[in-house]
């Protein structure tokens, strides 16, 4: 059995209560960290672990921690990003609702390591029921002496605040999240200064994803080297993958980084294959923002090797033949999927979620939505396809935050790999606009 760092006890009845969580070995990392380690030693272990930001960017967490400015007399903050909104991604939702104490424990050891005495968990507002679960867990931890003043008699104080968002994808971007936490619109900030220097309330701040923080108790207990021993190369540890779409067993899986994509899709231990009678057509491997890949490219690299579930292997070949691990939102599509229609739902999403601050994104996402809508409804022409590529190119890299890139990539990739489907909508508008119509021409299925 592969090592489970985050989900080993997730199905234990009552694991959401302090009592059961503690019985299963919970909060030992807090005892070890606060009583036997210095903050610097914890940061060192997290660095050694090689764990990378699990929100999507994959930036080494220990390095991010080491950038935190420490001016005298200025409070420092840890903010947990639980604004999970990337289409295809629901792992943090799953983790927090089932095992809230794991995140609380991670928040305590991470806050101690960073020298924060007040930390925030910013949860997307739609998950209000999860906020109640977290608040109850916090109360329990406080009652047991693991939160509040003078934790375990060590002199360390920590208060945890759970903050609801208001329904805005953009607040998953860390500076927009900080703006939102300050009670403002979620407009991303210009960088520099980075949050590590001027973050929440203009104080040094670290923003980390739920899954990233939830790894820290295990790292404290077992050491960074043990964590780094799992996985392959620079993709260390395990990763939660959210699986949706046309597989037999959608859900959240904790995988050791390094298994093959083929195994992940077809093995009974994971997705259990494509639903009966159907074939794999395409996969969006890391949340809606990453490039879609057709079946053959997601399974196999250009050199014929099998593609692996790692940061490096998924991005092998660049955007020409590769994609990204991103947030691990793994959306699987069989041959009944119309790529144009699916791409349109993504375009509509980014149009809706653009904060409107930068013109290329505000205007571009709207144009892409409109042009795609035209093609999907049989009213497009061939020039529209190139127009989409052109608009995508003009958004990419020209905005304050990565939402622009995130909106441009999926559209450019869908046209790169499935151009014939877009053309078919133009040349066969009557056929293409019938309910449930899907291009059945030249197509490689697996």
């Amino acid at each position, binding site marked *: 059995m592969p090592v489970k760092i985050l989900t080993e006890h997730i199905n234990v009845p009552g694991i959401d209560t302090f009592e059961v969580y503690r019985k299963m070995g919970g909060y030992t990392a807090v005892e070890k960290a606060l009583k036997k380690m210095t903050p610097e030693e914890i940061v060192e272990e997290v660095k050694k672990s090689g764990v990378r930001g699990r929100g999507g960017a994959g930036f080494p967490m220990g390095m991010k921690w080491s950038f935190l400015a420490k001016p005298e007399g200025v409070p420092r903050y840890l903010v947990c990003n639980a604004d999970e909104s990337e*289409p*295809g991604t629901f792992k943090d939702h799953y983790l927090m609702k089932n095992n809230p104490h794991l995140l609380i424990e991670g928040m305590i050891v991470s806050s101690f390591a960073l020298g924060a005495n007040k930390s925030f968990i910013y949860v997307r507002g739609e998950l209000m029921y999860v906020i109640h679960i977290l608040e109850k867990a916090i109360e329990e931890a406080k009652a047991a002496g693991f939160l509040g003043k003078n934790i375990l008699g060590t002199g360390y104080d920590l208060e945890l605040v759970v903050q609801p*968002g208001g329904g805005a994808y953009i607040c998953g971007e860390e500076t927009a999240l900080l703006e939102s936490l*300050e009670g403002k619109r979620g407009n991303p900030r210009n960088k520099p200064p980075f949050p590590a220097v001027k973050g929440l309330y203009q104080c040094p701040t670290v923003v980390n994803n739920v899954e990233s923080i939830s790894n820290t108790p295990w790292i404290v207990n077992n050491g960074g080297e043990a964590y780094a021993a799992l996985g392959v190369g620079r993709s260390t540890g395990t990763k939660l993958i959210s*699986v*949706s779409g046309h597989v037999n067993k959608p859900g959240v899986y904790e995988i050791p980084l390094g298994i093959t994509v083929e195994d992940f899709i077809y093995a009974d231990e994971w997705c259990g294959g494509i639903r009966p009678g159907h074939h794999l057509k395409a996969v969006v491997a890391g949340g809606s923002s990453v490039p879609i890949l057709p079946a053959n490219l997601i399974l196999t690299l250009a050199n014929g090797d099998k593609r692996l579930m790692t940061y490096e292997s998924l991005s092998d070949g660049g955007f020409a033949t590769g994609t990204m691990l991103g947030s691990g939102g793994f*959306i699987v599509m069989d041959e009944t999927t119309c790529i144009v229609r699916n791409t349109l*739902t993504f375009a509509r999403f980014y149009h809706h979620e653009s904060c409107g601050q930068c013109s290329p994104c505000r205007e571009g996402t709207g144009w892409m939505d409109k042009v795609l809508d035209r093609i999907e409804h049989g009213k497009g022409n061939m020039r529209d396809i190139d127009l989409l590529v052109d608009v995508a190119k003009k958004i990419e890299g020209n905005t304050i935050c990565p939402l622009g890139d995130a909106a441009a990539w999926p559209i450019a990739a869908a046209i790169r790999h499935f151009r014939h489907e877009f053309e078919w909508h133009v040349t066969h508008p009557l056929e293409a606009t019938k309910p449930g119509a899907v291009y059945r021409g030249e197509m490689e299925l697996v």
Partner: protein
Amino acid sequence: MTETTHTVAFTTERLAKAKEIIARYPEGKQKSALLPLLHLAQEQYGWVSPEVMDYVAGLLNILPIEVYEVASFYTMFHLDPVGKHVIEYCRTGPCCLMGGEDVYGYLKTKLGINTGETTPDGKFTIKEVECLAACGWGPVFQVREKYYMNLTNDKIDEIIDELSKD
């Protein structure tokens, strides 16, 4: 102050909750309580009217415009009156792959209203929203704090029956 302004106020219980929330943030950073307070207000009134926003501004000692610009940015806040039960269905890719469009179509036919509308008896409003972070359990909709997942036409019948009793 208009007369309506006087009529808007948190219940005693919610006012206590609001004060507890405001005290969570460092001195001088009380504006951070804005989103939590708007949620609290919407819980009480069902939607966020200009009067409610003015009231929240007063509690936080900020300008009303600071509340308006925030309330209108975040999609969860209803700036117009809504029905007793607001059904917010996810229209994003993964839910559509699982047959979302058909199921939501059934919901609209069953209630006899379109997205953005409220039933004449004021019981149901349908809204479409973007990804609700429950993609593996799609199609999904949310009614207040509750998630309804793996939706089918039959399930929708049951849910609407249940909510109609309320």
